[in-house]
C-alpha cells in the first residue's frame, strides 16, 4: 500500500462526514465544560478547606485529593460508570449520547479536575497575605465573608494560569470517555476510518481532529489570556 497521506479522496470523505465530526466536537466541548464547572465548584472550596480548615473535613478533602490524583482517569471513568447507581436516563437530544455515560464521565473528569484545581487554588490562596483576611475580619466580616469577598476574587485571578493547564488537560482527557462508549470527538472520528475500505483515511482523520483540538485549545487559552489581562488588578503584579 502506498503512503496514503493527503489523498484527495480521503479528505473528501472527511468533509462528507463533517456532521459526525461536528457532533463529536459538541460532545467534547460539552463534556469539557461540565467537567471543568464541577471541578471549579468543588475545587475552590476544597483548596480553601485545605488552607483554612482543620479536623476531619480537611483530612477528608486532602485524602480524596490524593486518591483522585493518583488514579488513572480511565479507571475512574469505568469505575464511576459501572459502580455508581446512575439511573438510565435515555439519550441527550441531537448528539445522541447516553445520559448516564455522560454523567459518569462528567463525575470522573470533574472530580479529578477538582482534585487538581484544589491544588492550584490552595497555592493561590496561600500566596495571599494573611493580612488581607485579618483586615477583612477587623471590620467585622465573618471568616466566610472574608474568604468570599477578599480571598476568592484575588485567588481566582492568580489561579488563571494554572487553570489554563487544567483546561487543556481536561479537554484532551475527554477522549478517554470512549471506554464507556461515549462517542466524543476522537471516538467518532475513529469510527470513520474503521469503516470497511476507509483505512486509507487514518492519517487524514487524525490530522483533521488534531487541528480541531488545537483550535479549541488555542482559542480558549487566548480567551483566558484576555480575561486574565482584562481583570488584572491595576498597578499590581498579579
Amino acid at each position, binding site marked *: 500500500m502506498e503512503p496514503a497521506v493527503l489523498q484527495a479522496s480521503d479528505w473528501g470523505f472527511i468533509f462528507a462526514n463533517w456532521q459526525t465530526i461536528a457532533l463529536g466536537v459538541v460532545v467534547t466541548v460539552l463534556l469539557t465544560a461540565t467537567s471543568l464547572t464541577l471541578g471549579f465548584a468543588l475545587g475552590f472550596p476544597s483548596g480553601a478547606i485545605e488552607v483554612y480548615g482543620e479536623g476531619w473535613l480537611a483530612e477528608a478533602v486532602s485524602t480524596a485529593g490524593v486518591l483522585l490524583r493518583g488514579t488513572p482517569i480511565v479507571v475512574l471513568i469505568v469505575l464511576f460508570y459501572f459502580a455508581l447507581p446512575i439511573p438510565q436516563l435515555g439519550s441527550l437530544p441531537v448528539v445522541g449520547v447516553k445520559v448516564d455515560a455522560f454523567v459518569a464521565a462528567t463525575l470522573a473528569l470533574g472530580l479529578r479536575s477538582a482534585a487538581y484545581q484544589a491544588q492550584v487554588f490552595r497555592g493561590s490562596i496561600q500566596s495571599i*497575605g494573611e*493580612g*488581607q483576611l*485579618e*483586615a*477583612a*475580619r*477587623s*471590620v*467585622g*466580616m*465573618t471568616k466566610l*465573608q472574608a474568604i468570599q*469577598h*477578599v480571598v476568592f*476574587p*484575588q485567588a481566582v*485571578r492568580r489561579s488563571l494560569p494554572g487553570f489554563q493547564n487544567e483546561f487543556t488537560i481536561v479537554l484532551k482527557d475527554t477522549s478517554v470517555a470512549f471506554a464507556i462508549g461515549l462517542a466524543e470527538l476522537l471516538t467518532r472520528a475513529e469510527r470513520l476510518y474503521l469503516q470497511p475500505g476507509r483505512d486509507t483515511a487514518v492519517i487524514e482523520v487524525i490530522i483533521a481532529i488534531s487541528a480541531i483540538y488545537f483550535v479549541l485549545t488555542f482559542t480558549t487559552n487566548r480567551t483566558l489570556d484576555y480575561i486574565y489581562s482584562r481583570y488584572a*488588578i*491595576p*498597578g*499590581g*503584579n*498579579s
Partner: protein
Amino acid sequence: MSLLRVDSVDKSYGDEPVLHDVSFGMDRQQVEVIVGPSGSGKSTLLRCVNRLTEIDSGEIYLDDEEIHGVDENELRRRVGMVFQDFNLFAHLTARGNITLGLREVLGLSKAEADAKADDYLDRVGLADQADSYPAELSGGQQQRVGIARALAMDPELILFDEPTSALDPELIGEVLTVMKDLAEEGMTMLCVTHEMGFARSAADTITFLDDGEIVERGPPEQLFENPEHERTGTFLGELTGLHQ
C-alpha cells in the same frame, strides 16, 4: 466610666509568655500611646482587644461589657484597626476598600456606601483617589485609606499598630496629620507608635511596655521629663534622639 478596661491580661504563645498581668483603662475621647521595644508584646496587646488574638486569662471590657461575651464580629465592628502594612484589599479601589465593610457588615445600599466612602476619603484628603487601586497609591495614601476604612465603620475605638513604621520618612507626616485631626475631633485612639512628636502633642497617656509588662504609664510630660523608672527614660531618650 471607661470605654476600654484591660484587666490582668496574660497571654503566651506556646510556653513563651508575651503579656503578663497587663491592666489599664481608657476613657472616651482619649488618646493612648503605647511604646516599647520590638517584641515587647505591643501588637499582641492590640490584637487581644479586637480578638484577632485570644487572651489566656484576665478580662477586657468595652463599655463595661466583657468582650468575650460579645459576638466577635460585632466587637470588631465597634473596634477599628489600622495596620502597619496597611492591608488594603488589593483587588478593590480606595472606595471599594471602604464600601465592602459598609455593605457586608452594616448592610448599607450601594449608593449609601459609596456616598459614605467618598465622604471619608475626603476627610483623609483623598477625594480625588477614590477610583485608584492600592498598588497605584503611595504608602502614605494607602495608610490614609486604611484609616478611612476603619473610621467609616463608626467605631467606638480605633487601634493603630505602628501605622507609620512601613512608610518612607517623607510620607509619615501626612498620616500623622490625619491622626492628629482625629484626636482633636475626639476619636478614642489606642496607638502603638514610636513617633514621639505625635505622642507628645496628641497623647493623653503614654504606656511603656517592656517584656510583656507595663513598666510605667502616665501623661507625656511625666514620662518624658520625669520618668519613675530608668528604663523608661533610656528608651524614650533613644527614641527621641532617633526621630529628631
